[in-house]
């Protein structure tokens, strides 16, 4: 019994304490009520009887994208638009009908408006029509009494002053879809856009900013009387890219009418100075929705304007891959720079004959000569001696067939085969496949961006990663200094043996790309050409005297060129693919020469300010 009374005593004591705490909490609520209703209430009590308060959110302007010198490459411009706030209209659909009497709406627009009215809460403004002309605005304002809930305001819309030049880098913005709004309800505000693809998507959250709010006094029919309180949203931050807009324009200009893409890197830190893809499209068309006809035109175009060929186009690298094969062989000690291989014009292995591009053969070739003449037989042999797995491992060190850390969405990785990959397909690897890989054909698929990365790494010996972001707001991105990038771990001696061969390609008589020799005193470019067939040449064709220029356009070989300059102090790397351009030496090398000339003269990596626009070199 004593225990029981103890238990009762504890319960009573504690219940009284808990009751006291609960009463105190209710007392605190009472004091909060006093605070909100009486102390702060004065702020609202001055309002006239008939007026009420409405809260409205304002969409922040989207941050801009700037080139490395601060030129605007994606900005905002004013956009006058008609909005409808359902809670201020007695009957929202009646207001829409009335609006359509003054400004005709298409069925598509009506469907969208109906959907928005269903989807959003009544106090969120719905866009009726964007990009109003002065005349249309006047028509709305004059007839305002018949349009309850309709108002005209000014928002911003995305503008790309350079149009198609930057389209593939910037991506585009589009109205948010339902999934976006579920993630961030702020996107329901009219005029909010979501980045789709490119830098607009990479930096979407930084660029987007935060919504602000205005408290408005509105009269009984919902017209605004005055503004009571305004909390400014924060504007999206600007993002500075590594691109030099002028260089980009110049590179694109040099690509002319070709279906081609080129990448220019700062070889020391991986900054992408230009990434041009031809043909292109105008990204501002996406802002208000692309027409069906335009879309069909783009998707049916065999030169594929919507695809960023520089980062997402995959090609066999052809002879531009030979430097990597050489380094794999040198490092594996399968060959030294002075070892000679005899080229009779073909290599027989098993029951197959592998042809050199030179029908009569090159004779005895060392590494330098083989690179200079782009001798296929030499590299067939080196590849055979080295083995595919070592070649693949070396490729990966040069950024080929591995994932690049680039901040551009949609970049494709490319592919370099290994024995393990072939085994995973349930097939055995043939030495013949290795031989073909020796000249960058077969299963190998790489993007121009990856080839530019390879060239920059060859030139500097550092594992630089290509990147497009230079600064977010005022904060510089990391990776701008060469020391930020680790060494590839290859002996300088081996690298310079390969670079020497690349020098000979451009600068020695009888090199395959002497046409690419720079017309600049004391500055030399080193490089390598490549031409890749897109279908096999049969023996029959070969004997008949096969000429690729006679093929239809889409069957002609691709032309490639990779290069860096200056040879003795590498600073810039370039990679170029001209689709169906026939031969690397004839189609790609002259363009690469002009691009490199332009890059060296502008020298964007060293300058802080944009240069006065240079006259194009004739």
């Amino acid at each position, binding site marked *: 019994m004593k225990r*029981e009374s103890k*238990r009762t005593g504890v*319960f009573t004591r504690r219940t009284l304490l808990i009751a006291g705490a*609960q009463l105190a909490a209710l007392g605190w609520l009472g004091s909060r009520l*006093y605070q909100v*209703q009486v102390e702060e209430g004065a702020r609202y009590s001055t309002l006239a009887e008939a007026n009420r*308060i409405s809260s409205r959110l304002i969409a922040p302007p989207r941050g801009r994208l700037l080139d490395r010198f601060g030129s605007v490459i994606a900005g905002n411009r004013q956009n006058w638009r008609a909005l409808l706030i359902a809670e201020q209209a007695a009957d929202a659909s009646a207001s829409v009908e009335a609006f359509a009497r003054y400004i005709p709406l298409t069925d598509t627009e009506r469907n969208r408006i109906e959907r928005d009215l269903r989807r959003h*809460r009544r106090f969120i403004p719905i866009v009726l029509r964007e990009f109003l002309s002065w005349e249309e605005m006047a028509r709305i304002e004059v007839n305002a009494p018949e349009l309850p809930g309709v108002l005209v305001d000014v928002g911003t819309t995305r503008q790309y002053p350079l149009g198609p030049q930057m389209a593939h880098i910037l991506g585009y913005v589009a109205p948010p879809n339902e999934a976006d709004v579920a993630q961030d*309800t702020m996107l329901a505000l009219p005029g909010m856009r979501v980045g789709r693809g490119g830098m607009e998507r990479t930096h979407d959250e930084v660029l987007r900013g935060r919504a602000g*709010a205005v408290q408005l006094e509105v009269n009984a029919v919902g017209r605004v009387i005055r503004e009571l309180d305004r909390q400014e949203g924060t504007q999206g931050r600007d993002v500075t890219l590594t691109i030099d807009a002028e260089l980009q324009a110049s590179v694109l200009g040099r690509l002319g009418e070709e279906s081609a893409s080129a990448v220019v890197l700062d070889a020391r830190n991986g900054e992408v100075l230009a990434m041009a893809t031809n043909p292109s499209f105008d990204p501002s068309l996406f802002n208000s929705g692309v027409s069906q006809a335009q879309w069909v035109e783009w998707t049916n175009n065999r030169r594929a304007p919507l695809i960023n060929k520089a980062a997402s186009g995959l090609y066999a690298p052809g002879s531009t891959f030979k430097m990597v094969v050489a380094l794999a062989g040198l490092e594996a000690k399968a060959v030294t720079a002075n070892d000679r291989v005899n080229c009779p014009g073909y290599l027989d292995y098993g029951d197959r004959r592998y042809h050199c591009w030179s029908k009569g053969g090159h004779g005895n070739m060392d590494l330098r000569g083989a690179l200079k003449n782009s001798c296929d037989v030499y590299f067939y042999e080196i590849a055979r001696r080295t083995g595919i797995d070592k070649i693949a491992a070396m490729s990966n060190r040069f950024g080929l067939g591995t994932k690049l850390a680039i901040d551009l969405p949609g970049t494709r990785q490319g592919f370099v085969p290994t024995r393990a990959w072939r085994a995973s397909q349930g097939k055995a690897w043939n030495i013949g496949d290795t031989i073909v890989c020796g000249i960058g054909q077969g299963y190998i698929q790489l993007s121009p961006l990856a080839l530019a990365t390879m060239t920059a790494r060859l030139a500097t010996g550092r594992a630089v990663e290509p990147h497009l972001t230079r600064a977010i707001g005022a904060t510089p991105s990391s990776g701008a200094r060469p020391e930020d990038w680790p060494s590839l771990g290859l002996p300088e001696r081996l690298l310079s043996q390969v670079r020497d061969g690349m020098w000979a390609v451009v600068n020695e008589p009888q090199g395959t790309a002497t046409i690419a020799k720079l017309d600049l005193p004391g500055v030399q470019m080193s490089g390598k050409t490549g031409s890749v067939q897109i279908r096999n040449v049969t023996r029959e064709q070969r004997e008949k005297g096969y000429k690729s220029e006679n093929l239809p356009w889409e069957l002609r070989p691709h032309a490639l060129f990779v290069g860096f300059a200056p040879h003795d102090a590498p600073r810039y790397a370039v990679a170029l693919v001209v689709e169906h351009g026939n031969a690397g030496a004839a189609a790609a090398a002259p363009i690469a020469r002009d691009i490199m000339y332009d890059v060296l003269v502008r020298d964007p990596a060293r300058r802080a300010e944009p240069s006065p626009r240079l006259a194009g070199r004739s």
Partner: protein
Amino acid sequence: MALNERRLIRAEADFGIATKLWRVSWVYILLLCMLAGVGYVALFSAAGGAAEPYASKHILRFGFGLVLMVAIAMVDIRLIAKLSWVVYAGGVALLVLVLRMGHVGKGAQRWIDLGGTLWQPSELMKLALVLALAHWFHKASWERMGNPLFLIPPIIALLVPVGLILKEPNLGTAVICAVVGGVVFLGAGVRWWKVAIVVGAILLVAPIAYDHLHDYQRARIDNFLYPERDPLGTGYNIIQSRIALGSGGMWGKGFLQGTQGHLNFLPEKQTDFIFAIYAEEFGLVGGLALLGLLAAIIVGGLAIGLRCRHQYGRLLALGISTNFFMYVFVNIAMVTGSIPVGGVPLPLVSHGGSAMIMVMIGMGLLMSVHVHRDVEFEDGRDEL
């Protein structure tokens, strides 16, 4: 022993239905009727000065709830005690069920469709938890209370529903559930520091559970904790609710004279934000009067516990009253913008059928404690 038996028999004999009805606290029921009346007035106003669609339904439901409450009050408290763990198991089963196949509404999976109306099993779970904990501690001897191992089963009984409700996710109800459970532990005589350890452990486990949530579930919790993240949703409600309160001032605008609510500035005005409608029209004075009425109901419930002669009834009354208090506190704190929004209704005032019925079931249990406050009820005090 003989004496005890005789008293028990006498108690049984005396306990006809008329006696039971006589023992019901009609004053307490009057307080509840007053509260429901306030609800009627506020909902009448929320509908723009009409009984339809909220107020008439509200009073109908309350009538039904009142009958239910008195009926439950007639049930012998010892029978209720026997069923405690059955109800608890049922509550947990429903919680699991709602996670597997419940309706997703208002951003969380916490509703079950029961004959056309949507029910939140977590509401039932709070009562079931109180029943189960009260039963456990009722059976406990004072010596066993001192043994930490003895506390493990009730702690698990507390953690399981809290975890499940957290997963829905319904952070507000999970917190209320944990607080109500903790208060029952305290009332049972568990030492303060032990309760503190349990609460501390829950706080430690919560971030781990948070990591196991899906992204969208996490976003909901974040929106709950930081409403400014979501200015078009919950943040908007708070701003509008404070404007409604503030424009009410000291004396209010008068019945049906409120503007904020009528103009549809205030979403969910008939449910979670009904207090704002009421306080806009009746001012601080009306708000404080309502708070006083609510305080009387809470203190009355605690007093029922103090007058009860068996531990089960005492703990039940404490738990149910605390649950009611938590509703009131979270709702009004939310409406005044003092804490993040939790989707908790104001009991017997907010529009909503299932919440009303659950509150009235709780009140029925409370009243059964009152009616059966003196019954002989075997407990664990002689066990060792």
